[in-house]
């Protein structure tokens, strides 16, 4: 696993925890421990995204901040199996 892959895997891991916690919270909106878990993971997710994007470019085009060249379109795209 190269650096890019390792950092992206971290993003994916926290993203997954958020997705799963969200689905649970949708059906149990008053579960305080699930809300606390969600909030804890959200902090880790935000941090992992920041670290990844500072080295390898935006995961969302809304966070693109290019000046000379539009890098959002750069390969690899996720389905190409490079280090998605």
């Amino acid at each position: 696993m190269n650096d890019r892959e390792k950092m992206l895997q971290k993003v994916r891991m926290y993203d997954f925890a958020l997705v799963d916690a969200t689905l649970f919270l949708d059906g149990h909106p008053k579960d305080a421990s699930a809300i606390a878990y969600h909030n804890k993971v959200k902090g880790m997710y935000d941090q992992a995204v920041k670290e990844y994007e500072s080295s390898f470019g935006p995961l969302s085009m809304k966070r693109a901040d290019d000046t000379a060249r539009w890098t959002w379109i750069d390969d690899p795209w996720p389905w190409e199996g490079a280090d998605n």
Partner: protein
Amino acid sequence: MWGYEKKLQYPVKIQNPDPAMAKLVITQLGGPDGELAAATRYLNQRYTMPYKECKGILTDIGTEELAHQEMIAAIVYQLTRNLTPEQIKQSGFDAYFVDHTTGIYPQSAAGVPFSASVLQCKGDAITDLVEDLAAEQKARTTYDNLLRLIDDPDVRDPLKFLRQREVTHFQRFGDALRTVQENLDAKNYYAYNPEFDVQPVPQPRNMPRL
């Protein structure tokens, strides 16, 4: 609205092409119990869903299904890269190839194009959620069947992840159905449709006293 994130939900990294396997896996994109059907079903059912918990569950599971479509498409794409004409003929991929080359077309393993006739938006909360529970089980069975036929660990790994998500979604739709039932008159919950009737169907005036 939706936004795209430039990553797969779970990694797909396949070393060896295998067009025969691609022809099977593609059913989870465009087949009767595939991810396209799942996303279409949930994201359309949600508009008339009366309870906020259920609107959230349909929206968020429907959104995750879009990410699963992308994973299946990535598997099919990576299984059909760099093929020779001999591989295409020997693997039985030739019929697909003449129609689509190696483009990713939503169809079933048997070659039937995707159709919305595999799903329903009935406009009744109980009816739709029971369909959704069944849909998750049908998709889980399909993943089980694929895992019985596929040996390559590069393909099995993402399929096992997707299979597990079907199990989780089944649990979450169980939460949704419980929410609907708690909001209805427990003695009367099959008597009316909570998406359409605002109150229980009135009794006929001349109903004989028992």
